[in-house]
């Protein structure tokens, strides 16, 4: 038997050679967006280490400190860089924790969407026929209810049925489930469309001729070839999920005030905006806008890189 070769170009070397890396190096906007996004991600992950206060710990909150403006304003306190909210929590710490909550919900909800959407989309596209019609009609029905409507009904019913206390404990899980389930058809449709194109290609015939089973062909051969639309849609969907969560929180159906997300922070500050405490709403609002914008721009860039033939107007 022959000796086994061990010359394998490393992943890193392959990556540095790729079109992906080259276009990233040339695109300032992409670099900037990626920078901001990774910064937000790092801040969110290490929030407990970075934040000067723990907004979940009521012992650290003093109601006497409430509604202090940011430190650069005349009445500001140097202790609270971005001021405090109505309950006297340090706004900087609360935003860090809020970003953490928002990103967790966004990413987990999208993972759930992707999980459902990929399985359903692959099955519909590859098996076709009746399975396809059935699954896609279900998707149509799901899409005909707006995400907001589904979320509001489910969350409101849950709150009414099981009480606010249980709801507050399970708020994050509920939000992930609701946003995840309400948006899977986006994935399913995108994936089905690319599966329909992929399954006509000869490598799928070749795989069938080799005697591979349906599941193996679907997941190992077709799925990797539909990865680029999945990546693109994921960035946009995370941004959408974060917005959806923020809107629900703003309506009082999202995260409770004791564990605020960016959305519930904005909403809690809204009551005080006319008494002059603009920072409670505006600063988290800016963070949210920046986060969503950066993700959408990254998604656009990704789409251009992965589909070089796309017309760029």
């Amino acid at each position, binding site marked *: 038997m022959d000796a086994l*070769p061990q010359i394998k170009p490393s992943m890193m070397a392959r990556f540095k050679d790729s079109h992906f890396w080259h276009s990233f190096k040339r695109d300032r906007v992409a670099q900037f967006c990626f920078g901001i996004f990774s910064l937000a991600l790092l801040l969110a992950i290490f929030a407990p280490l970075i934040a000067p206060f723990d907004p979940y710990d009521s012992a650290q909150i003093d109601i006497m400190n409430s509604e202090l403006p940011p430190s650069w304003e005349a009445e500001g306190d140097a202790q609270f860089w971005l001021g405090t909210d109505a309950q006297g929590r340090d706004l900087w710490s609360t935003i860090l924790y809020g970003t953490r909550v928002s990103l967790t919900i966004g990413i987990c909800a999208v993972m759930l969407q992707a999980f459902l959407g990929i399985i359903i989309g692959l099955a519909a596209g590859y098996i076709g026929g009746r399975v396809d019609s059935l699954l896609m009609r279900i998707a149509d029905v799901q899409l005909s209810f707006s995400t907001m409507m589904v979320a509001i009904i489910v969350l409101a019913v849950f709150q009414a049925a099981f009480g606010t206390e249980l709801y507050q404990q399970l708020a994050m899980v509920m939000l992930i489930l609701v946003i995840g389930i309400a948006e899977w058809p986006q994935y399913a449709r995108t994936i089905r469309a690319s599966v329909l194109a992929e399954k006509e290609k*000869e490598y799928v015939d070749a795989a069938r001729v080799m*005697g591979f089973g349906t599941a193996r062909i679907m997941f190992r051969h077709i799925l990797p070839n539909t990865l680029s639309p999945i990546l693109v849609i994921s960035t946009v969907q995370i941004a959408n999920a974060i917005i959806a969560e923020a809107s629900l929180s703003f309506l009082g159906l999202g995260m409770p005030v004791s564990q605020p997300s960016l959305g519930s922070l904005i909403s809690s500050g809204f009551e005080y905006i006319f008494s002059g405490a603009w920072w409670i709403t505006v600063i988290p609002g800016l963070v949210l806008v920046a986060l969503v914008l950066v993700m959408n721009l990254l998604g656009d860039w990704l789409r251009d890189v992965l589909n070089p033939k796309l017309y760029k107007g």
Partner: protein
Amino acid sequence: MPLLEVNNLEVCFGLRQGSVTALRDISFQLERGERLGIVGESGAGKSVLGFSIINLISRPGFINKGEVLFEGKNLAALKNKEMRTIRGNRIAMIFQDPMMTLNPVLTIGDQMVECLRAHRKISKQDARVISLQKLKQVYIPSPDTRLDQYPHELSGGMRQRIVIAIGLLLDPDLIIADEPTTALDVTIQAEIMELMVELCERNNVALILITHDLGVVSEVTQRTIVMYAGRVIEEGPTKEIINDAQHPYTQGLINALPQMALPGQRLNQIRGTMPGLNDLPSGCAFSPRCDYVLPACHEAIPALTKSGGCNVACHLVTEQNNLSEVNE
């Protein structure tokens, strides 16, 4: 017992306008290690025949009648699960376009190892060693680096060699090659065909070569089947068919080869086009294009009858044979 025996195979496609018969009454036999060519124009049913042998006609097509006996087992009636142990394992298939038949996102090694491990219980390391051996058999330069490369990093000829290596991975008894060299340029084409003949002879593998190129068929195969509109119209040893074609259609095909035309003259061609399968003329399907058409040709479909060393389905040939018998 022959390796492969196809008896009265009929394949239909259920379309909205009604069912269309793509293959009618196809019968032939193939011995171990024999090389058979299937020739015909586009749409004659060559590829459908290839796919129906491994029972992989995609919907709305289906095998309506007949049997495909592989070592005595009827593949047309086999369950999908059993069929999968034969596909790739005992019967391999090679397609036209090597650019398309390899999965673009998996390395060559991954694809070969996966194929081996789908049919045999062996470790990844062993599978890699076998893959390497097969790549050496098809004369790929520096095979160990190729294993970790992606299909787009290789040239067309190299990819077709890899596809052949994948076909040989599990030491099949039969390879069905569906126009394996059409997408390659002429020099590479000759190399690949030579390679296939060598590999088939060395491993005693039978080959069914589906092509529209009579030149390739004459170099590679021992026996040839000529198809027209879903039927076998002439069948016999390749040498006899090339040198002494009896069916007017086969004669036309041979005359249409570029080397048959005289210098300074236009290339020969068969006038007209093949009829669609849903509006076949009555009688012989070739009659509207045939120069020697007889009244009988419009009435009855000629049966495949023995004539010399070949079997031919043509009223003219039958009549001439009858006449010569009478004269004797």
